[in-house]
């Protein structure tokens, strides 16, 4: 069966990239009450989470050929 970690890994990596890009190229756009560039930090976290899921899926594939 389809390993859910693969599509969800790609999904979080892609939206992570999009959000990080907003944080990098438009750092001044913030919510009125926000003190930090949330797009940058949350975006990087989403990206890292996506990569983590992809790594898990890759490891599982290698173990069972």
């Amino acid at each position, binding site marked *: *069966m389809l390993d859910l970690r693969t*599509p*969800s890994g790609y*999904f979080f990596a*892609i939206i992570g990239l*999009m*959000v990080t890009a*907003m944080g990098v190229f438009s750092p001044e756009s913030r919510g009125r*009450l926000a003190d930090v560039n949330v797009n940058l930090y949350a975006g990087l976290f989403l990206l890292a989470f996506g990569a983590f899921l992809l790594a898990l899926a890759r490891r599982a594939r290698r173990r069972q050929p």
Partner: protein
Amino acid sequence: MTLAPVDYAILAVYFAFVLGIGWQLRKKVTTSGDFLLSGRSVPVWITSLAFLAANLGAQELIGMSASGAKYGIMTSHFYWIGAIPAMLFVGVFMMPFYYGSRARSVPEYLKLRFDEKTRTFNAATFAAMTVFSSGISMYALGLLLQLVLGWSFTTSVLASAAIVLAYTFLGGLTSAIYNEVLQFLLIVLGFAPLAIMAVWKAGGWDGMAARIPPVMTHSWAYMGRASDNPMGVEVFGLAMGLGFVLSFGYWCTDFLVVQRAMAAESMSAARRTPLIAAIPKMFIPFIVIVPGIAALALANMSTGYVLPMKNGGPDYDQVLTTLMAQFYPAGMLGVGLTGLMASFMSGMAGNVTAFNTVFTYDLYQSHIRPNAPDKHYLMVGRLTTIGGVALSIGTAYLAQHYNNIMDLLQLVFGFVNAPLFATFVLGMFWKRTTGHGAFTGLVSGTTAAALTHGLTVAEGKGGWLASLHQFPSVMAQNFWIAIFAFTACLLVTVLVSLLTKPRPDAELSGLVYSLTKMPTDEGVAWYLRPAPLAILVAVMLVVLNLMFW
């Protein structure tokens, strides 16, 4: 709130993945079991997250942040005492019968254990309830998008229905489960930053506690008397009504959640599903309730944040969306909004996939056309999916026009649900329980619930027969309705069972505790065994309650 192009792009990426997953899974669907039961082959981490996510709809997100602002941290009782003990019970004690009896649904277990009439009663009310809940989910989504983004109600309802239909039609239950997991992760990652920022801005937990009344930051300290806390509930009503009757009735007997565990790949995985789910479950309050409390603290500070208002009073249901608008820029706003839409849609999909299973196996196969080839039931399951979505759309429009009908339906379903746990617990643990006993017990429990509502008043609700008692809040009234319904069902079932002829022991093997060899798990690592896992979860729960006493 206005969305930037990047927010729409994130939403579009999500839709593409949801449909893509459905498309990928379509090849695996060749029998009705694949479509309606996932072929019992889903890994345990996925069933666990789906077990959790099936209940974490968007109404829940919006409602829980609203309750956080209204009642404070005591709202977390709905996650702690009101869910965890029941999740442990279903995993350790009840799953062996659901999974081991090879019943394909919860109503089918009732058929195997009792008789056809008990099954049909449960199946018919459950089917009606799922269509209704799915329609309400759709209605809430349409309303939210109309209010927050100015989208048209019809467009929102039809577009979301089309996407849900596409992926459940293609991949069946597996598709719904996969998307529930994706939605759950999206909700956590999309709303955790909001919770962190809101609490940070309000001065951390201590800063929040200093700015709002102490009753808002304690979960148990003010539960002694109903008049001491904003919920208007006292500790007995809370523990018995919510913690025992309502929560066990929902988590242990509602096919929508039990179906997720029954899709697991082995008995051991099915039993561990609710236990593993319980661990993230107890921390969800920090993402969904705490932002509401933070909003209340922020409104008491000179940050310029004010609670949203409607008709002269605070409109708590808007707390979450106003926080998003205040803290999130384009980008994360898209992620948060996609999370909200995803949870509305998976709420619909969850109901539709439970509906088509119960309709196909418990109503169609048992009453309309038994003994057809499996291919026929696969087709019926698929058609029922379309029918379920169509009925949900109808319900959404009905809700838009006749709010009173919706309230009434919700009330009636509450009456039907309240006594269910008594029937299951007697059926599973007392072999003397008979089919006639179970059926009359269920009917009496439902009647008792309706009578309690008719004879008591709370905030102007109920009392349509007479007013014998006044409850301090609707919540307290609901808890006590459940307690009376459960007690009536229990007593009547026992009484009628003693007067009617029991089934021979041989027929009940695998269905009743004393006549079933419970699965043993010696020789496996402790974290793969239900009992040690349950103890770990229970200890964590106690610690958490003491921390927020």
